[in-house]
C-alpha cells in the first residue's frame, strides 16, 4: 500500500506525486470506528463501575 498516487512526468523519465493514495481511505474510516468502539466500551465500563460504587 502506498501513501501517494504517482504518474509519469511529462518527460517520461520519472514518477511524480499527483495526490494522496485513495487506498488509505479505509484506514481513516477504521480509525474513526476504532475511536468510537474504544470510547463506547470505556464509557460503558466506567458507567458500570459508577453504578456499583
Amino acid at each position: 500500500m502506498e501513501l501517494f498516487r504517482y504518474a509519469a512526468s511529462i518527460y517520461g523519465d520519472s514518477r511524480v506525486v499527483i495526490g494522496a493514495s485513495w487506498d488509505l481511505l479505509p484506514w481513516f474510516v477504521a480509525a474513526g470506528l476504532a475511536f468510537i468502539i474504544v470510547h463506547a466500551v470505556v464509557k460503558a465500563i466506567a458507567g458500570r463501575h459508577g453504578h456499583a460504587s
Partner: protein
Amino acid sequence: MSASETSAPVTRVVSAPNERVLRHQLVDRLYHWLMAASVLTLMGTAFLPILGWKFEWVSVHWMTGVGLTLLVLIHIVRALIWQDWRAMMPDGADVRAGARSIRAALGGSGPAPGKPGKYKILQKLYHLAVAILVLAIIVSGLLMLLKIDTPFWKRNPYWFDADTWGVVYSVHGFASMAMVTLVMIHIYFALRPDEWWLTRSMFRGTVSREEYAEHCDPSRWRAEDRA
C-alpha cells in the same frame, strides 16, 4: 486553583423565555447546519466516485467548496469581531481539569476536575483540528480550481510545476480523508444519549437551567437573566 480563580474568558449568555439558557444563536445554528450539509456534499462528491459510483461530480464539488469557503469566511469574521473567540481556545483551567479527569479515570486521588465553561477541552481540541483541516482543504481546493474551467475563469494548469501540484493535491486528499474520521466521531458524540443536551441545543438554540447547572461552571460561562 479552581476554574473560577483563573483568568479564563467569561462568555455572557442570555436566558431565553421560560428559563432556558441560550447556547447557540440562530445565525450560529444556521452556520453549523449549512457547514454540515456542505461537508457531507463534498465528501459524497469526492469519495463516491472513488468507491465506484460514477456521476458528474466536479461541478457540484467545486461549487459546494466555494460555498463552504464563504461560510467559513463569515464564521471567522463573526468569531473574531462579534464573538469571544477565546471561549473556543483551550486554557489552563481546561488542561488542569483534563489532567484531573484522566487521574480520576485511572483510579488516582486528588481534586475533582472542575466543570467546563461553554465548551469542554475535547470539544475545543476537536474544533481546532477541524479548523486546521478545513482551512487546509479550502486553501488547496481554491488552488485546484485553477485546473478547471468555470463560468468565471479559464483553467491554467501551468500556474505551478508538477511537483507543487502534487503537494497541493496531497494536502487536499489527506485532509479530506482525515475529515471523514472527524465527522464520524462528531456524529457518534451527537448520537450518544449523554450528549443529547448538546445536540438538542444545536436544533433549539437553548439548554435547560438544569442542564446548564449540571454541565457548566457559571463562572466560566455566565447565564444572564433577561428579567
